[in-house]
């Protein structure tokens, strides 16, 4: 059974053929060629594949592709450009929050959705809000710094 879905990917309408048990992650990477969405475990345990779906950060590996029909999805490429980056992207670069960069895709989106909900978080709240996104390189310190700094900048 092939199902046609329509998503708004980074502001652009996109039609995709998906299978009933296909994950949104696979539909984005293989179908929409959105390779900026990464796969770390396919199991919802690492947060690498995080996208913002209708305003909420979700593990795209745990979303059934057909159930994403009609949703708005934001990936890293939808946040900003080098000329016009989002505050979060800029903060990640300037605070040294990026090492290998593989978790970054999910991390920045999680952080963006988190600040939408909680614009002036404490550092503990940041840690709570980011606990679904694993990073093996940074020890998280500079990631928390970046989110903290983006929050302050946005105020």
């Amino acid at each position, binding site marked *: 059974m092939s199902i046609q879905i329509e998503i708004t990917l980074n502001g652009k309408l996109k039609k995709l053929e998906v299978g009933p048990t296909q994950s949104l992650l696979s539909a984005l990477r293989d179908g929409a060629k959105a390779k900026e969405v990464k796969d770390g475990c396919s*199991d919802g345990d690492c947060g690498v594949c995080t996208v913002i779906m209708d305003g909420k950060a979700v593990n795209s590996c*745990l979303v059934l592709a057909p159930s994403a029909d009609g949703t708005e999805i934001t990936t890293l490429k939808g946040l900003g450009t080098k000329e016009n980056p989002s505050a979060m992207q800029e903060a990640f670069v300037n605070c040294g929050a990026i090492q290998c960069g593989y978790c970054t895709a999910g991390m920045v989106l999680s952080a963006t959705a988190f600040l939408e909900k909680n614009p002036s978080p404490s550092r503990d709240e940041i840690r709570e809000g980011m606990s679904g996104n694993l990073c093996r390189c940074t020890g998280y310190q500079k990631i928390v710094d970046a989110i903290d700094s983006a929050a302050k900048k946005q105020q």
Partner: protein
Amino acid sequence: MSEVKYFRPRSYSEFTDLLGQLPTGFKTVAGTTDFIPAARRGAPYPTALLDISKLNEFQEIKEEGGRILIGAAVTMADLLESDLIIEKCSVLASAAKSLGSPLTRNRATIGGNIANASPSADTAPVLLTLDADVHLISNDGLTRQVPLTSFFKGYKITERGNDEIITGFSFTTPQSGIWSRFAKVGQRSGAAISVANMSVIIDREDNICHDIAVAFGAVAPVPLRAVSVEKAAKGKPFDNQFITDCCEAVQADISPISDIRGSADYRRHVAANILARALTDAFA
């Protein structure tokens, strides 16, 4: 797997129209936070998927006639952000907040948490102590309500028939002034799966435990009410003996196993310890 059919009703009438038409062996899904990992591990695919995640009727949290009603597709994020739940049933918000990570909480539903009957399901002990009912509707349209206390039949086996769909849960709004706690022991602080969890609701006055409901998860094949603890505590005054009796009683209630997350011995220890801590704090 290409033969799996997919149904996603967008309104309650679409949903009821589907009833009777769903093929035998269909599976209800919503957040799919359990379904996808299980399928990856080789769980057989169902004949069809019924996706109830877009049904407004199943996403409601409301209070009616002294009872709180929670739709099956209500997510953990919905619960922990709900003013009604925070105000009148904070213990459930606390369990919801402990489940998984913020990412999974945006997807994982209360219906799925109960339907999968995982021993470690974090909302289960809370709903057990709230004496919640499970609302079911079958493929032929019949509805029924089952007390959660008789819903879990065995390891990952429930009272729900194969053709039944969980539509929601309801329970009497807890009285104001009761003391409650959800406690969880995990292997790490963030995104932890329970090695043991517990919900306690106590109606106490001065030093007397008038009424108590205690339930545990991850310490038996199913989440369960600690009936021996409740019997040992009800009507008794709080003192050291009270704690000792309750902690002894809990060992009769639980039957933990050793698994990848912890030994049976550890589970017995922490179950008693978190119970003792809760009781001490409740009467402090």
